[in-house]
């Protein structure tokens, strides 16, 4: 609640503080539709420009058509696995930071995804604020590795 009150006074995080008219473009890739829909709503409310992909292929299609600042990617997906999608994204846009957000969190998968070039790693369920912080730092730092 205290966070909510503070939020009212601050600039919405979805806009670049340096360029107020620049909106941060996010791509959410996850086959849990309800989850990313809700997440997208919350992010849009914070002025982010959000695109949703309900599968890895869809994510790849979207990335072909448009540019994004940050990607939030689930690892465990049907058909095309998150790690493979991550590798494809790396080839398509080497500078694009990807944050892994998965329910199958373990040290092993975290290590694997970070070694494959993910910007950061979060386990579901996560605190929304933590996700926001990671998105912002990913946007600001670009694709510099943090480990």
């Amino acid at each position, binding site marked *: 609640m205290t966070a909510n009150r503070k939020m009212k006074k601050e600039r919405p995080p979805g806009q670049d503080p340096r360029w107020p008219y620049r909106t941060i473009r996010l791509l959410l890739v996850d086959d849990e539709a309800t*989850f990313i829909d809700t997440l997208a709503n919350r992010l849009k409310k914070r002025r982010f420009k959000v695109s949703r992909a309900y599968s890895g292929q869809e994510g790849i299609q979207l990335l072909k058509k448009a540019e994004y600042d940050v990607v939030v990617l689930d690892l465990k997906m049907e058909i095309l696995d998150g790690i493979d999608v991550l590798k494809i994204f790396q080839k398509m846009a080497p500078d694009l930071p990807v944050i892994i957000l998965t329910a199958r969190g373990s040290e092993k998968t975290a290590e694997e995804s970070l070694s494959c070039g993910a910007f950061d790693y979060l386990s*579901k369920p996560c605190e929304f604020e933590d996700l926001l912080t990671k998105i912002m730092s990913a946007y600001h730092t670009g694709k510099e590795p943090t480990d």
Partner: protein
Amino acid sequence: MLSKPKYYVSLRRKMVTAILLVACAPLFLLSGVILRQFNHAFREKMHAHLVELIQKHRQNIDGFLNEQLNIIRYVASSYTFDQLRDEAFLQQQLSRLQQQFTGVFEDLGVVEESGLQIAYAGPLKLLKADYSQADWFQKAVARQTYISDVFLGLRGRPHFIVAVRQAHGDRHWILRATIDFRAFNTLVENLRIGRTGMVFIVNQENAFQTRPAINIPVQRTLYARLTADGGVPRPDTGIIEEVSDSSGKYIFAGATLKNGDWLLVCQQDAADAYQDLHFAVKTTILILLLGCFAIITTAWLISRRFVFRIAEADHEVDLMNRQVVETGKLAAIGELAAGIAHEINNPVAIMMEKAGWMQDLLEEENPKTMRNIEEFNLSLEEIKNQARRCKDITYKLLGFSRKTDSRPQPVHINTLLEDIIALSTDRARYSGVVFHKTLRDDIPELNVSPAEMQQVFLNMVNNAVDAMEKTGGRIDIATTSDEEYVSVEISDSGPGIPKSDLGRIFEPFYTTKPVGKGTGLGLSICYGIINKLGGQIDVESEVDKGTTFRIHIPIRGQTSAEGPGVN
């Protein structure tokens, strides 16, 4: 051994049987064959020896007889009938012969064709003696020369006669000489073979022609048996073995003398003849028996040892299998837990985001027009709190499953213990058991298998909770460390372990829990795991006061164990 004694008894029996069969059978077979061959060879040799001996003596005796015959023939042919008729001349010849051949010639006589002795030289008064009815005379007339059987005759002393027929004109006369029996007897009397062997001569009627060294009964059919083999006449030497009387078995060897009139017989006690053979047989049998005894003893000992080893190995394998099953169970639980945790994470994440989204939306509402906005916010925050609690649970489960990995890796014992306490708290709460932990911060990391460590501590904690299931109580968990060891102390305030059981609690399959409740393996597995790490487990217990387990795990042993690598 304890679980299937029948199996091991039969296994042992089979082993003993196999060893005996393989070792003893050839031994017996070989011994039998060798003994048989040896027996046969020895008998052959013995027989051959006897035959050779008897042949030699036959030549001697035949030679002696022929010599006497030749002498008489020489005398008869050298002088005329008329010369020999002269008693003085005859006496002179006898004296010469007696001088030449001491003790052989007893007397000399000239007998007419009619059987009347017309000249005699000798110690007896036998002039004019009529021999016409004498057996020797009849035979001497029929043949050219003749040597009679030994007989008592007129003088009542054993003797025999050598007679030579000569022609004088158209009539025949006979020169005869009496051969002293003693001279002849000494030829064979002194022949001794072994201890019981002796030589004697019988005629065709089986009458003794020489005196045997030992008085033996007359063998009625000896001549026939030794000279014919199933009706077929033998060449000239026969050998038989038979029971001659109740005194035992004898070997007879016989050779014909005097063109088959006489038989030179060698008789030897079989027991004496085969003394060496019997000794060899006895020795062989003794060695065979000793060998068998040694084989049986060895088979018995080896089988006992082997079966004991097998039983031990079976026992170990059994134990190991059960340990594998126990570890496997834990791993399966871990996998299941991980699966559930992952599945639950997604819905919980959605719940959390939905609550957050609702909070986002509530922010847009006017608090004045919406009366219960504060309650909504509180409830949503509570939903998020409960979702966080779910997350804690799933992450503990994931942590647990991660530690089912049995490869050694750096493990912080405190974290492990906290995980276990967290996992066991709920179960403990139902039994009224509370945890108290005193975990020192300066505990070094250990390079151990987290799964095994987890198994050890979980087992200890579960045992403590089980012990206090009905009564409730407290479990104190403390960690300390010194330079060498990290020590974990787990004490409960349960009923304690009686002294009689205390020594056995680490034994496999020892349990005081009801059938089906416990395998009795938990503590033995713990002991094995800690022992493998070079550590030790102490237990201290007082009935009605509680039990304390102290587990000491070496620090250095673990760091050095890093070198050789995993597993």
